C-alpha cells in the first residue's frame, strides 16, 4: 500500500503522543524538553506531508513553515536547556515535581 496522507498523519499523531508521553510521564526536566522537541517534529512532519499531498506543490508555504519552525525549535531548545541548567545550579535538582515554587 503506497503511503497515503492518512498514514503520514497517523505516524505524526503517534509521534506527537509519544512526545506527550515523554513530557507527561518522566520526572526529569530534560524529558519535558525532549517531549516538546518530539511534538514539534511531529507538527513539522504534518506540515510537509500536507504540502506534499496538497493541491498545488508550487505553493511551498508548508515547507517554509517547517523550516522556520525548526529554527525556532532550536532557539527554544537552547533557552530551555539553559533554563534547566540555571535551575539545576540554583536548586541542585532537575526533577520536575520538586520545582513547584509557583504552587497556587
Amino acid at each position, binding site marked *: 500500500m503506497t*503511503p497515503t496522507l492518512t498514514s503520514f498523519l*497517523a505516524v505524526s499523531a503517534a509521534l506527537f503522543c509519544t512526545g506527550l508521553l515523554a513530557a507527561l510521564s518522566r520526572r526529569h526536566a530534560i524529558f519535558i*524538553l525532549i517531549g516538546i522537541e518530539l511534538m514539534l517534529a511531529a507538527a*513539522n512532519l504534518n506540515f510537509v506531508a500536507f504540502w506534499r499531498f496538497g493541491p498545488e506543490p508550487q505553493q*511551498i508555504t508548508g515547507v517554509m513553515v517547517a523550516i522556520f519552525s525548526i529554527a525556532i525549535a532550536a532557539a527554544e531548545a537552547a*533557552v530551555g536547556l539553559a533554563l*534547566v541548567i540555571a535551575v*539545576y545550579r540554583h536548586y541542585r535538582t532537575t526533577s520536575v515535581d520538586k520545582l513547584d515554587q509557583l504552587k497556587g
Partner: protein
Amino acid sequence: MSAVAFVLISILTLAGALAAATLPRLIHAALSLVVTFLGMAAFFFLLGAEFVGLVQVFVYVGAVAVLIVFTILLTRRDIEKDRGFNWSGAVIAIAVFTGLIWAILRTPTLAMVAPQIPPLTVRRIGEVLMTGFVWPLQCVGLLLTAALIGALILVREEKR
C-alpha cells in the same frame, strides 16, 4: 514513494521516539531522540523535501541533540536514581492518541495518494525565502540572536 521505505522509516522513528520517552537512563533517551530526528529527516527525504531533511539533521542532530547531551552532562551530579514512571501521563497520551487517530480516520478525503510533483530544488526554496518570506527570515534571525544571548545570560555562573 516506496511503501517499504515508509514503513521502515516509521518503525525506526516511532521506536526511537518510544525509546526516548521510556528508556530509564537519560543518556540513552537522548541518543534515541537523535535516532528519531534522523528518522524525521528520512521522512522529509521521502516526502521530497530534501532541503528540510538536511536542515532537520543539521539543526536537530547537530545542535539540539548536542545541547541536550551537554545539559545531561552538566547536571550529572544529580544522582541518576530512577525517578519512576507516572502512569497518568501515559493514560492521557493514549487518550489523546486515540482522539487524533479517530479524527484522522473519520475524514475520508485524506486517504489520497501522493501526486507527482516537480522536485523541490534548493533554488526554489531560496527564491521563496528571499521574496515572500524576507520579513519572517529577519525575525527568526533576531529571535535566534536573542535566544543566544538569553541562554548565555541564563547559564552564566551565579555570582555568589
